[in-house]
């Protein structure tokens, strides 16, 4: 479905619910639109089941844009994932899971009745897909987390979550690229730089991510930092 939503944006909706093939389909649609070298195209914002197309209203009106998008979408089938090679790079992210780097790890263990090692095992067992990017530069929403360790966000977000914090919110998981306020349940810390002003976001919609547990020593050697102030 293609629907103009503002004087400079059109929303393409591919599905009503999340499914695992969507990130790859949306990434492919984005690529097709970029390849079409549309003079009015300004921004493409992919998310779980949608792609927001932002354009320059001085170069095209909403009728031109909608009909051009329809044409492009009809030449290739973005509705299904048949016969499409898997897209997206595989990124391995090291995580130091611990009480000192993951202030909610003990809480999550108590809440789920699992021991902490089991939580770590379950979090590292799945290859996640990047469904969306947003909230902050380089912040990638990944899914889907093992239901046994899926817990909702905190009622009151923390004022400050350190850079690299790995969190869970329901069946989503993410790494905070920069220190920021945040309400996700933090279980560890990742020393990898996720957003660099020169190379931009390490992760893109459609990418695949695997977390692997590392030791405190390896975390510090990789440039990871532990904040002295204990989080509330």
């Amino acid at each position: 479905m293609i629907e103009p939503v503002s004087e400079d944006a059109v929303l393409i909706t591919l599905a009503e619910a999340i499914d695992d093939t969507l990130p790859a389909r949306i990434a492919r649609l984005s690529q097709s639109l970029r390849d079409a070298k549309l003079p009015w195209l300004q921004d493409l914002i992919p998310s779980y089941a949608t792609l927001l197309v932002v354009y320059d209203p001085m170069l095209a009106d909403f009728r031109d844009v909608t009909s051009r998008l329809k044409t492009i979408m009809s030449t290739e089938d973005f509705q299904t994932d048949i016969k499409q090679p898997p897209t997206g790079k595989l990124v391995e992210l090291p995580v130091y899971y611990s009480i000192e780097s993951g202030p909610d790890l003990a809480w999550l263990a108590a809440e789920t009745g699992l021991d902490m090692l089991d939580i770590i095992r379950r979090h590292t067992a799945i290859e996640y897909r990047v469904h969306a990017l947003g909230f902050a530069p380089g912040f990638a929403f990944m899914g889907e987390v093992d239901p046994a360790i899926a817990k909702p966000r905190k009622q009151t977000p923390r004022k400050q979550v350190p850079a690299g914090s790995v969190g869970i919110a329901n069946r989503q998981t993410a790494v905070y690229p920069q220190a920021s306020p945040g309400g996700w349940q933090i279980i560890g810390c990742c020393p990898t730089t996720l957003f660099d002003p020169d190379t931009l976001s390490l992760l893109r919609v459609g990418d695949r991510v695997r977390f692997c547990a590392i030791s405190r020593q390896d975390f510090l050697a990789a440039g990871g930092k532990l904040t002295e102030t204990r989080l509330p």
Partner: protein
Amino acid sequence: MSWLEVIRPGVLSSVQDSGRQGYRHHGLACGGALDVRSFSWANKLLDNPRNAACLEIVLGGFHAVTRGKLQIALTGAEAPVAVNGQPVSMWQTLNLNDADELTIGHSASHRLIYLALPGGLDAPLHFGSRSVVIRERIAGLDPIRAGDKLAALKSNDTRPDRVVPIACRPALSADIRLRIIPGYQYHQFARSDILRLTHSAYTVSHQSDRMGFRLQGPAMDSPPPGILSEGIAQGAVQVPGDGQPIVLLNDGQTIGGYPKPGVVPSLDCSALAQQLPGTRVRFEITDLATAQNERRLFERHYQCTRWRSCGHLLEWL
């Protein structure tokens, strides 16, 4: 080269141009001048490029010393402006000499003042833009501080004195009409809630900033539940669980999961961004074609107008 040396930056002053294009899929906000009209007129007074960077000064309280000869322009919220203690007018070119002191007092009625320099303000380019998005905390993208130098990109080839006629200045009236283009989850909202939105007065909350303006008024009874996060168009009206609308502006998040009954056109967002807490606003429904035509007319007007002789000043044609 000439520049302004900042003595006091005021409440919050940041470099803003037309914003970043093509980086929102990395989670980077657009940024850019909030009041497009005042920003555009400031640049027009100095024959600057359309997207040249200006200083966006929130509320005023700004004080700087001139180094060298410099022509500047000030537009936006009416505030007491003085050069060496002598009052001067806004919405016109100002010729400053070496060591002149420029002071901008506090605006009593509106929020944003734009200061333009010849050729635009010289500031580092990040993501194809000079706009600063403070909340992203990216190194080098900070508000202006005391001691900073505000340099012009062009040497000071002084233009004739110019003034923007009152009729061409944006009307920053007290009672603000915010039009809304129905879209996104419009049809999922109860009809009674849409009527409540368009038939009530809302006031601008203190919790309003470059990310978004929170409005307080009759709460919508039953906004639809959260949706799958989707890309947010600038000006989108987001309604969280408490039923109070938030108009998302230039530094807003790129995606979000709250339901949205529609989007406020950019020129209405410009008027909203100028309002102080407590100002009353009303929503009314408009259609996309009208909003798009208005935006295009504004751009045409901006591009096609020329300066003509009018006594010792040059005026808008």
